[in-house]
């Protein structure tokens, strides 16, 4: 009975569920521990500045180039679709709203997860593999405060700035295509954009989203690195989990946040 395939199937489901719950619990306790060690880490801002350099500054090029191209594609496709209904003049508001509300935070977040998140996971995972973290503990240096918290906060601080830069480059790209190439009037482009997009709630919602994504991706990245199996294979699968899990977390959180924000708008 115990060896029947049905029992084995159930056992596998049970083991998977218990494993998932214990990982979720560990991740939550890890998050609390990181927050607990944050004040002592932030008292040495040089550590966090270094991580902002690696997560933020080095992601600048990919974020800005992607933003420019996404904006240019939006300009072309949006104008094509809008012009069928004689609404080509609304290009500005269309591009601005899509970038500020959705594409800026989401695409910048996805790029951030694959560019910076994976690097952080690999770095921490390799430190664990080469027993640097254990060595630090032996020297009475807490790796959570010295290694993990600065990387977490570096990511959290970089993400909103990168998302804003992505949106700005996108708007600029759409401006190049729409106004310079297609010939939408410049005043109409900016005027429609400003009339249709409010700082509150449109721009602020985008900023809130990018902050939430930054927290989620950074937490996943440092957690997967810290939790990685201390082998070459373990580090590589942890890096993969960061990119896959981070991307899925961004898309799922984006849906949840959008639902809440639009319900908020509808009820006034």
């Amino acid at each position, binding site marked *: 009975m115990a060896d029947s395939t049905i029992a084995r199937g159930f056992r596998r489901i049970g083991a998977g569920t218990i494993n998932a719950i214990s990982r979720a619990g560990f991740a939550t306790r890890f998050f609390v521990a990181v927050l607990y060690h944050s004040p002592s880490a932030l008292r040495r801002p040089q550590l966090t500045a270094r991580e902002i*350099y690696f997560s933020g500054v080095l992601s600048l090029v990919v974020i800005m180039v992607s933003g420019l191209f996404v904006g240019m594609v939006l300009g072309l496709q949006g104008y094509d679709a809008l012009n069928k209904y004689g609404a080509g003049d609304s290009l500005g508001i269309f591009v601005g709203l899509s970038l500020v509300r959705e594409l800026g935070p989401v695409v910048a977040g996805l790029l951030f997860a694959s560019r910076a998140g994976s690097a952080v996971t690999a770095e921490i995972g390799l430190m664990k593999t080469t027993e640097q973290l254990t060595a630090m503990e032996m020297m009475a240096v807490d790796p959570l405060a010295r290694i993990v918290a600065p990387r977490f906060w570096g990511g959290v601080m970089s993400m909103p700035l990168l998302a804003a830069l992505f949106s700005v480059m996108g708007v600029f790209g759409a401006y190049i295509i729409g106004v310079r190439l297609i010939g939408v009037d410049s005043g109409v482009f900016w005027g429609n954009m400003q009339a249709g997009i409010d*700082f509150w709630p449109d*721009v602020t919602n985008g*900023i809130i989203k990018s902050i939430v994504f930054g927290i989620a991706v950074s937490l996943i990245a440092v957690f997967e690195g810290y939790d990685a199996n201390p082998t070459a294979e373990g580090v590589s699968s942890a890096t993969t989990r960061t990119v896959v899990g981070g991307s899925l977390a961004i898309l799922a959180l984006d849906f949840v946040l959008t639902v809440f924000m639009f319900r908020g708008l509808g009820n006034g």
Partner: protein
Amino acid sequence: MNRATIDLWVGIFVTIGLGAIVFLALKVGNLTSIETKPTYRLEAKFDNIGGLKLRAPVKAAGVIVGRVESVRLDTKTYEAVVGLRIDNGYQFSKDTIAAILTSGLLGEVYIGLEAGGDPAMLADGGRITKTQSAVVLEKLISQFLFDKAASGPAK
């Protein structure tokens, strides 16, 4: 990578990042139009407000002079009571007409104010008595069909 270089690049990054947020706020989001000026409140009752939404603009001669602040139903008369926030800089006479209008066929719904000739002005909390409700397209069409039917079959 030495400390000074990292500091320099992080400084540049944070500056242009914050600059991007400011750009989004001012150039894209038009933060400057948020009402920080002193305002006063007016009320108007309508039979039907159609698709009027909160924060819809209030215009006089096409110029935005305020926003819709609240919409509620008066349960005694079953009329919609719309609260308007008007800039202190704009004063309206007591016989001003408020109408719910649509910009274009599919455009946004807004409230248009047409100034009257009364020398007395509306004060804070004042009520606009002359109103014109939203035009409901279905009613218009059914009226049109009814008129057509009443005038006999077309020859």
